[in-house]
């Protein structure tokens, strides 16, 4: 394919090993020989794991599924960078040709207060689901929708909604953020639905509840480091965070007004 066939590399890895959520972890060094540049990063770990099993050692646990960069299941810190050195790329789509023979790589799980490590490189991202539960949807009952073409939606709005909706929920944004914030993840959903007419009726409530859940999960606040945007495999823009912040401010003011006039929330 790429003219690499035949050449192989030797890579030294320092991998975070941790038996479970309770026990402490540590780095363990592995030498991996005969790495083909056409292998994906995860295939390199597969090869290492096969060798470990043969030696009777526990293979390295890591999350993955589609291996096409779309399910958001994979995610490793590689030399301190979420998903490694290649821009706009998930770990599963990173190939060993991005590295050189003899490279030393440090591999860690996502590190964030809200993402506890379960084993080795596997973390618990259930907090993301709970943020969506707090309002990341349009309340529509199955079977009651009107004809899809009754509401026209300007192409630029549909495109903007799509750009935000492309988030795969991998958590790289959180891992990259010095504050461990999930602002980019949360904003992407608020902005996806906020750009569409269907999302309007619940827009303020959605913003308020999702951000409240975000804070409750222990994610930090956004202070504009922009690290999230830099590592996002789907290139979700931090402009979405600005939109979220506007919605949250408006939502809070509306809620205050509600309290004064009706003595209750919405």
């Amino acid at each position, binding site marked *: 394919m790429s003219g690499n066939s035949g050449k192989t590399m030797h890579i030294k890895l320092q991998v975070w090993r941790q038996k479970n959520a309770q026990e402490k972890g540590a780095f363990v060094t592995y030498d991996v020989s005969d790495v083909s540049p056409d292998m994906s990063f995860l295939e390199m770990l597969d090869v290492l794991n096969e060798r470990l099993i043969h030696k009777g050692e526990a293979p390295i646990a890591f999350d993955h*599924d589609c291996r096409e960069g779309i399910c958001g299941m994979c995610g490793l810190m590689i030399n301190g960078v979420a998903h490694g050195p290649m821009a706009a790329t998930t770990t599963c789509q990173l190939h060993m040709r991005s590295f050189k023979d003899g490279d030393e790589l440090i591999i860690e799980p996502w590190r964030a207060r809200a993402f506890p490590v379960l084993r080795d490189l596997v973390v618990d991202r259930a907090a993301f689901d709970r943020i969506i539960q707090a309002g990341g949807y*349009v309340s529509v009952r199955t*079977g009651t929708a009107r004809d899809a073409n009754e509401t026209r*939606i300007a192409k630029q709005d*549909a495109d903007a909604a*799509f750009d935000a909706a492309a988030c795969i929920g991998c958590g790289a944004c959180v891992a990259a953020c010095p504050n461990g914030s999930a602002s980019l993840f949360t904003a992407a959903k608020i902005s996806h639905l906020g750009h*569409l007419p269907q999302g309007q009726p619940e827009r303020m409530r959605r913003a308020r509840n999702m951000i409240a859940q975000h804070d409750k999960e222990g994610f930090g606040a956004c202070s504009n480091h922009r690290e999230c945007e830099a590592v996002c495999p789907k290139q979700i823009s931090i402009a979405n965070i600005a939109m979220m912040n506007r919605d949250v401010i408006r939502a809070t003011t509306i809620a205050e007004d509600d309290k004064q006039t009706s003595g209750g929330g919405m």
Partner: protein
Amino acid sequence: MQGPSTPSSTSAAAAASSPLLKSNAPTGPIEQRWDKHRFDMKLVNPANKRKYKVIMVGSGLAGGAGAATLGELGYNVECFCYQDSPRRAHSIAAQGGINAAKNYQNDGDSIYRLFYDTVKGGDFRARESNVYRLAQISVNIIDQCVAQGVPFAREYGGLLDNRSFGGAQVSRTFYARGQTGQQLLLGAYQALERQVEAGTVKMHTRSEMLDLIVIDGRARGIVTRDMVTGKIETHIGDAVVLGTGGYGNVFYLSTNAKGCNVMASWRAHRRGALFANPCYTQIHPTCIPVSGDYQSKLTLMSESLRNDGRVWVPKSKADVGKTPSQIAEADRDYYLERKYPSFGNLVPRDIASRSAKEVCDEGRGVGPGGLGVYLDFGDAIKRLGKDKIAERYGNLFEMYQRITDDNPYETPMRIYPAIHYTMGGLWVDYNLQSTIPGLFVIGEANFSDHGANRLGASALMQGLADGYFIIPYTLGNYLAQTKLDKVDGSHAEAQKAESEVRERIQKLLNAPNPSKTPDAFHRELGKLCWDKCGMARTKEGLEEAVRRIPQLREEFWNSVKVVGTGDELNQSLEMAGRVADFLEFGELMCRDALHREESCGGHFRLEYQTPEGEAARDDEKFQYVGAWEWKGVGVTPILHKEVLDFEYVHPSQRSYK
């Protein structure tokens, strides 16, 4: 038993079906069947719905949509998936689009046309009533998804855009860039999470179903393993629904996600659910070819690429080593355009795949091992400009370059067919109920709508039709007319299933001579299945596979090496369990392929082809669904037949010339 003497003599056919396989399809004019059936079905009193517990295994398009809708109706739903979130089900990977008979393009589409195309595309091996219902429901799906905020592609005027896809002569495919599955799944996921918040659905992530619990002949629960702690749990309910996806990974290399497996269906099969048409597997013509032995999966390049890309190989074997630019126009064989002048590069998947194999078998394939053909955008770029091509396929080109390090704007892509979808699955009736009462099967896991070959953009449609629009009705109908005893996890059958699960895990962990990894077994099985039961099958090859798979299975139980224990997060144990089931399932698939002495759709037997090399069906003998009954490991399964009637679309030989 024998098929009808003339292919479309309907009553004789019906009489010949196995009594186990009553389709329960309504009769009367086809366009009224579903409406009539919905009216005839019993309803569950709204106040009683929450008293019913429904176990939904799977949270992909089918399971996610089903769990969300059942929860919304008020049922008490427990939903399971093996990933860490329902948003990651393999449906997320679908690129191309979803069909619906909206006729928004005013190009002559209709429900009847979609029905007709699907029956014909399935090579006359699907049940007409089901297919018609699918075509009817297709229009509601798009409405539903748009209302949820799914950002489908739009035209400048703000209306929904469509494209033509996978051999269809109308533009009925809705799409969201190259991420249609992702956007549809996120719609279902959000609806599901809304119900989790509302308290009607309880989601169990990182939970794998390892067995089905059948009590008094009815499906009443499942046994699961918590994939983080290893805890074995029993869940009892009033009905069980499987939306657990397809079995393409029996071939090891496929376009499926790594975790896709047959376990849920297979465990149900072992408990009495008949498995239908396992030999109907679909091979997708446009995947990135294999690059080395470490390869863990194959990546699909959306079929939409065939709209503008031209497929070719060198005319002469002598040229295969040259770079594409060294091969003159006159020395290229655009074999699809040559053989199928009216469909050209857009012929259905099975035909495109087989033609690629043929030219590679002739020694004209390109790239490593000669297993590849060119998909060339040179002419399209000349005609439309690079920008237009980038707008249409930019993300696909990028993906291709990332994987192969080649730039498709400058040099043709190399593609090769790969396993992509499985039309076979657990047998279900019109209500999507399996042969075990109370066990329903939806999405790719059932066999129902695509016959021997699925048309592009129809799986997403079927998954959502089953999940949003069919199962909520038919499951209610079952519950409303069934009186179930109160049972709990202490029931002898539940205890038995649980202890069998524990024993099996111990067996996997303690093989007598542990020396070979689960992955190594899986690769070996996959290669055998691909060689003998892949794109072209023969009696000899299949007989060999049926002989060798049991040997491999025996070796597996003797020497599989799994490190660690069952009481922890243990990915190699998970994999071993899945491979163990594939080793039983693979044998059934090959047996089914062996028994079906005809070629149809994705099942191509070299012995049965027309003089022009096209699939030769044998309607006289094989116009039926073959559903297999489990009799034990290594025991020949029993074949049951549901004879198919074609009242509307009369079987004819497919022709795409």
